[in-house]
């Protein structure tokens, strides 16, 4: 099923011709209207007219989050404020937030791409979409909301929080599609269990989860506990918001990135050079139809890989793999690269352990130490010390075997690790490097 069959299945030569035309047009616009881009293109000695092929994109300089901070709040806007109809901002981890503006047409396109994403996930007109992404400056809530309306589904704008009420509404209103962060979906499952609500008795069919990296193992757990098909969605406010890329329910293998609006590249984060198809690296995105704040070669810091192989769903758009972390939340522990998502996959594999964990990194003398705190499930708990100690040892051993890093596993009481209803905090790094 497609929302916009013509564009979702556009043969690659036509798609690439469209990309080039749109790229050339956006480059002209940013060069003329955004002093930052005029400056950075001039510094690199490139004029928009020099971009004659898609491959020429590599010659353009990157845009980074720091560039957005330096232009706070509106410096990168390419449209005059009277054309901006919406402003969103992403919470800055340090200092000021990153601000984005949308023209009326930007909102139209975003709504369409989100509607395409819903259809790709298996949703349709007539679905009751329980939208538990936060409404507000965060793009998740309103982004999914507009897409759901564009699709013609019934949207419940429940936003985040008040989990008991969420569960009641899902039951009573007959929600068929759930949208929220993957960690919040598991939090809901726990709450439901405490309330004696069985997800098997709900009408939920599809869950669309994003805004934080998760793992294939976690998908298995969510699908089992919530009794639905769990679909990975990707987006970021700088580029648009949710709906930049999404899995198709037919394959659930890689996220189709809507290439008629975005050009993806995968680079080596150290060198900035493109990596080969299928190789892991940092995702870089150029927006080619945006008016409010078009970004050229924006470094997302998200680590993924890309494939242009045809997909069984019939969409011609390239697929990026599940995000395996951030190029900036990668932990280097005694020289070993560790992504929190890798540890998560191991923990879910040890069936007794709930995937609520926290990595605490310290430096003792010159040595990095990694402590993996995991919550002990009720069903696992034993009255014998040795059985619990064996579990901790097994976690340590599996992490050592799989990742090559020595850690200490610490068993903690259920619900002691902070649950967030937005993004899960998985790492505390106390090292001063």
């Amino acid at each position: 099923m497609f929302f916009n069959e013509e564009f979702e299945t556009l043969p690659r030569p036509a798609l690439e011709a469209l990309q080039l035309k749109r790229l050339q047009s956006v480059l002209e616009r940013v060069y003329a209207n955004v002093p930052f881009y005029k400056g950075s293109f001039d510094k690199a000695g490139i004029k928009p007219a020099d971009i004659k092929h898609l491959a020429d994109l590599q010659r353009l300089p990157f845009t980074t989050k720091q560039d957005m901070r330096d232009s706070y709040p509106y410096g990168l806007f390419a449209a005059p404020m009277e054309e901006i109809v919406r402003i969103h901002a992403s919470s800055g981890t340090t200092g000021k937030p990153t601000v984005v503006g949308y023209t009326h047409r930007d909102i139209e396109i975003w709504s369409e791409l989100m509607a395409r994403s819903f259809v790709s996930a298996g949703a349709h007109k007539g679905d009751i979409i329980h939208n538990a992404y936060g409404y507000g400056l965060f793009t998740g809530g309103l982004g999914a909301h507009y897409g759901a309306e564009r699709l013609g589904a019934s949207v419940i704008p429940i936003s985040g929080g008040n989990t008991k009420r969420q569960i009641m509404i899902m039951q009573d209103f007959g929600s068929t599609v759930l949208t929220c962060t993957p960690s919040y979906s598991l939090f809901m499952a726990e709450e439901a269990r405490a309330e004696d609500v069985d997800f098997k008795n709900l009408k939920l069919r599809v869950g669309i989860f994003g805004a934080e990296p998760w793992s294939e193992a976690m998908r298995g757990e969510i699908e089992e506990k919530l009794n639905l098909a769990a679909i990975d969605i990707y987006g970021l406010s700088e580029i648009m918001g949710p709906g930049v890329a999404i899995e198709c329910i037919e394959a659930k293998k890689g996220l189709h990135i809507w290439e008629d609006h975005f050009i993806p590249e995968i680079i080596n984060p150290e060198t900035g050079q493109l990596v080969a198809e299928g190789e892991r690296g940092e995702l870089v995105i150029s927006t080619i139809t945006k008016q409010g704040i078009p970004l050229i070669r924006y470094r997302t810091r998200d680590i993924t890989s890309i494939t242009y192989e045809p997909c069984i769903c019939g969409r011609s758009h390239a697929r990026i793999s599940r995000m395996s972390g951030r190029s900036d939340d990668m932990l280097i522990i005694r020289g070993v690269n560790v992504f929190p998502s890798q540890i998560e996959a191991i923990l879910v594999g040890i069936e007794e352990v709930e995937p609520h964990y926290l990595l605490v990194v310290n430096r003792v003398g010159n040595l990095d130490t990694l402590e993996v705190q995991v919550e002990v499930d009720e069903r696992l708990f034993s009255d014998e010390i040795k059985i619990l100690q064996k579990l901790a040892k097994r976690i340590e051993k599996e992490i050592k075997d799989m990742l090559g890093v020595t850690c200490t596993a610490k068993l903690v009481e259920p619900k002691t690790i902070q649950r967030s209803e937005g993004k899960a905090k998985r790492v505390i790094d106390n090292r001063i490097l």
Partner: protein
Amino acid sequence: MKVEQISIFIENKSGRLAEITRILGDAGINIRALSLADTSDFGILRLIVNNVETAKKVLKEKGFTVSKTEVVAVEVPDRPGGLSTILQTLDSGQINVEYMYAFVEHYSDNAVIIFRFDETDKAIETLKSTGFTILEGDRLYSL
């Protein structure tokens, strides 16, 4: 023949024992016997209480991990060597004691010891056949 014990998972941080005993106290639960096993990171608090189900329920509601285990309460002569005779009996029956702790109250003139065995039924049989008295849960909870 068996006695129900509740075990609670606690992290080694200040105030956890106080919290548990407060919760039980508020619910009108009387602790009849207890033992605490600990490691550097966590501990297991094992309790014999006068109302197992209520104790389990109120602790779970407060977010604690709680489990129920069957243990055996044995009357032990309160004199030098009293415990030794029981342990020798068990040893000759090749029964392992996982852990044990003493009951607060006396029963008749005897002390009461709580045992957790690897093979509970075999242990009960061995002890009974050698003349030891095993206490029923109902009598023990109300001692």
